[in-house]
């Protein structure tokens, strides 16, 4: 969806905004892939802000959305397109796509086919292997990759921002995270859930694509697979609360409806009907009574 949103924003000269979507997407499938041509994506884009705060907000928002959907403990792995580019350039590797594939597959065999430079192999092997906090970048810099000062500082700050959102335990750096989409030009990330074999989503910064569409503006966002989430949530057998039955005694309908509206405002679904001798639910008369407990709810509500 991101590509379409970027195109839309650019054609309307919209240079800032916060957008979200839950949409069905259609894609061309190569015969290899085992997936659906039509799928649902939910995501958000933050346009017009380029700082580390914006990147942190996007990551935190993705995690918060999943939490609200009942999926606690999702993990995010961060990667960096600039760091990857700088490393590739330093070792003069021309087969960029081959290298990207080797690294994303953590395949030493494929890496050796792309380059024979011992130092390059050592550095890229480290990028495939190591996962952790901002010190992953520091180590890479110590291994001789030049020009990473800016990136080390960026990731230190990003971890600070993510910590402020309360998600530092969910997030790690894995420099082999490179996302398939070619439009990313800054931080990229993938989202995982224990027990789900496929990343459930991801995102990153794509200022460069906005520029392609003719707008020099910052943009970052994330998307998650709705189809996968539905599968997971169904598997969790999260019990959906059935609506609360509110009954009224003749003459108290208005009071019952008033109560129902207050309950619905609090997010509690309920129905209202005339009392016909039911044994469970809430009975509204002179007082409000929870029928199976026999308690008065006057104060609680």
């Amino acid at each position, binding site marked *: 969806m991101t590509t379409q949103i970027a195109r839309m924003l650019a054609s309307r000269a919209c240079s800032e905004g916060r957008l979200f979507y839950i949409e069905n997407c259609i894609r061309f499938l190569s*015969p290899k892939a085992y997936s659906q041509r039509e799928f649902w994506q939910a995501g958000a884009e933050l346009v017009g802000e380029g700082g580390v705060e914006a990147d942190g907000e996007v990551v935190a928002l993705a995690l918060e959305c999943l939490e609200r959907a009942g999926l606690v403990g999702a993990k995010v792995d961060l990667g960096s397109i600039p760091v990857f580019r700088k490393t590739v350039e330093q070792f003069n590797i021309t087969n960029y796509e081959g290298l990207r594939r080797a690294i994303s597959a953590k395949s030493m065999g494929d890496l050796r086919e792309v380059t024979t430079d011992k130092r390059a192999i050592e550095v890229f092997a480290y990028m495939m292997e190591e996962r952790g906090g901002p010190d992953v970048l520091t180590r890479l810099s110590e291994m001789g990759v030049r020009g990473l000062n800016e990136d080390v500082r960026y990731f230190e700050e990003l971890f600070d921002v993510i910590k402020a959102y309360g998600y530092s335990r969910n997030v790690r750096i894995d420099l082999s995270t490179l996302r398939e989409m070619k439009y990313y030009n800054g931080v990229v990330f993938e989202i*995982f859930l224990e027990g789900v074999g496929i990343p459930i989503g991801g995102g990153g910064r794509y200022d460069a694509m906005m520029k392609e569409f003719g707008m020099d503006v910052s943009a970052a966002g994330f998307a998650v697979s709705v189809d996968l989430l539905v599968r997971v949530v169904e598997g969790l057998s999260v019990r959906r609360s059935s609506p609360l039955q509110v009954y009224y005694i003749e003459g108290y309908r208005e009071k019952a409806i008033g109560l129902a509206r207050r309950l619905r405002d609090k997010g509690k679904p309920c129905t209202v009907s005339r009392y016909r001798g039911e044994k469970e639910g809430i009975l509204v008369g002179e007082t409000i009574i929870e029928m199976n407990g026999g308690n008065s709810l006057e104060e609680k509500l």
Partner: protein
Amino acid sequence: MRGVILAVPNKGRLRGPAMEVLERANIRPLDNDRVYLSNTTLEGVQLLSIRAADIPIYIYYGIADLGITGRDVVAESGLEVYELADMGFGECSLVVAVKSDSKYRDPSELPHGTRVATEFPNLTKQFFNELGIQVEVITLRGAVEIAPLLGLADCVVDLSSTGRTLERNGLRAIGTILRSTAKLICNKVAYKTRYEQIKMLEDLLVRSA
């Protein structure tokens, strides 16, 4: 947390060497070898015995965490998995072969409309697409070598380790699509969410390879 599920081929050329690696690593199935999913002598590790070509699928969807299978079937599946290590056995090549008396010396010489019999339709299509040759791919499930002799196909794309089977069936290799060995592959999410368990098993298997 459930244990790690390690997938190995239940038959075929990789079965023997894969089981030898497990033997050396002291991982033995507790059930007889007809059981698809078996507990093992190593606590927390279960063994899943399935067809080599299905292993990338079980790994991709995260049903199995680690698997030993050929690079050929991983590439054919087109699925993204981590290839953690080379297991050092199962060496072979996916080759294009024609009848011994054929005039063609290189795959690029094959004419449009050539009929190619193979067990690897995806890699075959991709290979000839890149050459710009339109071919008719005939997918078979085995005994591919016999197809040219009987006139079903003009050439085959098939695995060959020594070239002897090709020779016996009156075929000659004219090009290589891919070299393959047995790989230790891993589900991408499992590698991240259960790193310690996976790493331990990876090290053990690589040491025993």
